[in-house]
């Protein structure tokens, strides 16, 4: 049994320490995944909490069957977000509100510049095909491995690698004037 499998098994049995580790390891990247997709801080915060509440509720039923924990977690995040978008009956926002960025220098001008850059990247990603977008978000936004992305999306690793490559090629073209 791998270390992660052991952690998940202990968390499912009600071990606070194990659940805490899984939570801390994944909290930021779930938030990041939701934020880069929704572009709204408040909605991303609500959904992040809903995702982990759901994880807590159903972690007892999680079975490995060669599905990594991160894939399972991000399927929950993806489904929560789709439910949210349907509920709100709106399209994903391309423009975003201001969010807290991990900048060492809190100079407002730097923050504004970073927000602008981030929005350009989000805007260009939104122009990709849905499958390419999903791969880029999970791979570059959430930091999942190719295997985890493939498992989360129910695709082969070869397909994910091709989507990733073609997605970056398309992004390169879209961003070329700025590069």
């Amino acid at each position: 049994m791998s270390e992660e499998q052991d952690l998940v098994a202990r968390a499912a049995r009600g071990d606070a320490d194990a659940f805490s580790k899984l939570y801390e390891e994944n909290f930021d990247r779930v938030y990041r995944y939701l934020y880069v997709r929704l572009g709204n801080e408040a909605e991303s915060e609500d959904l992040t909490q809903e995702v982990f509440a759901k994880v807590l509720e159903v972690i007892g039923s999680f079975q490995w069957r060669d599905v990594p924990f991160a894939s399972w977690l991000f399927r929950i995040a993806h489904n929560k977000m789709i439910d949210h978008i349907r509920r709100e009956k709106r399209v994903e926002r391309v423009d975003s509100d201001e969010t807290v960025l991990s900048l060492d220098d809190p100079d407002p001008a730097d923050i504004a510049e970073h927000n602008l850059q981030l929005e350009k990247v989000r805007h260009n990603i939104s122009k990709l095909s849905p499958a390419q977008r999903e791969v880029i978000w999970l791979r570059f936004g959430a930091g999942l491995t190719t295997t985890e992305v493939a498992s989360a999306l129910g695709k082969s690793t070869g397909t994910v690698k091709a989507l990733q490559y073609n997605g970056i090629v398309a992004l390169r073209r879209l961003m070329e004037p700025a590069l």
Partner: protein
Amino acid sequence: MNESIEDLFDRYVDRLVSGDGVSSCAVDEADLTEMLGPLLHTGELVAHQLRTVEPSPQFRMAARIRMRNLFFAKLARRDSRPNFLFVWWQQRWATAMATAMVVCLASLGVLAASFNALPSGFFYPVKVTTEQMRLAVTTSEYERAQLRLEYAERRLSEMTSMADRGDSATAVLLAGEATRLIIQTATSTAIGLSDGGSGYFALAPDSTSVAVAPIVLLNADRAEALLVLEAALASAPEELKPSIERLMGELAREFDATIAHLETTTAS
């Protein structure tokens, strides 16, 4: 060359998403440098920009407390303790139902009876819903801060009562709820602290067995809540200071009593 261009690119992306710069991804195959180099630069830019997104410290703190409360509520529920209403009242849809219930029950004098209810009691949801309704209809930020401080004091008193009854899981929930109210008050516009806490405690600290986790968590909450209150006292308007000082005294007393009780029961 056996590796496809997608495979090769993926290997370099692995390095990019783990934080390495594009310079560390020197393309080994010289004839591919021209093709992959620009793509890796694009990949690096995308990874870098997306990585700048982080949750705010306030949200991280509040979410951690809420998660911990949910976790211990689940444990308590699993142990068949009758505090399921505590979780139930937190659900959004419950507010509407409970509002209707409060209106109905108000005429029966149930509100008065709920004032001293504990989380294990039948009328506890009435108590917390009444509190939420009072907060919802209060428009003055100062009055809302006063109310939150008052509710935090109630949670602390309930925490001690539940520990006395041997329900450590619910005591921990109440400690978390009191701390959440204190942080909410401190970061409200009435006081205006920018960061409600030190980020000191995790859901449960490392190397802590489930048996002693409640005491560790209570100690962490005690330290955290006192830190926040001390900071709040320094920047609060004069009219809120007496309430904050009183709460600091109550907080120390109630936490000490609860922790002492749990230490006694754990040792035995």
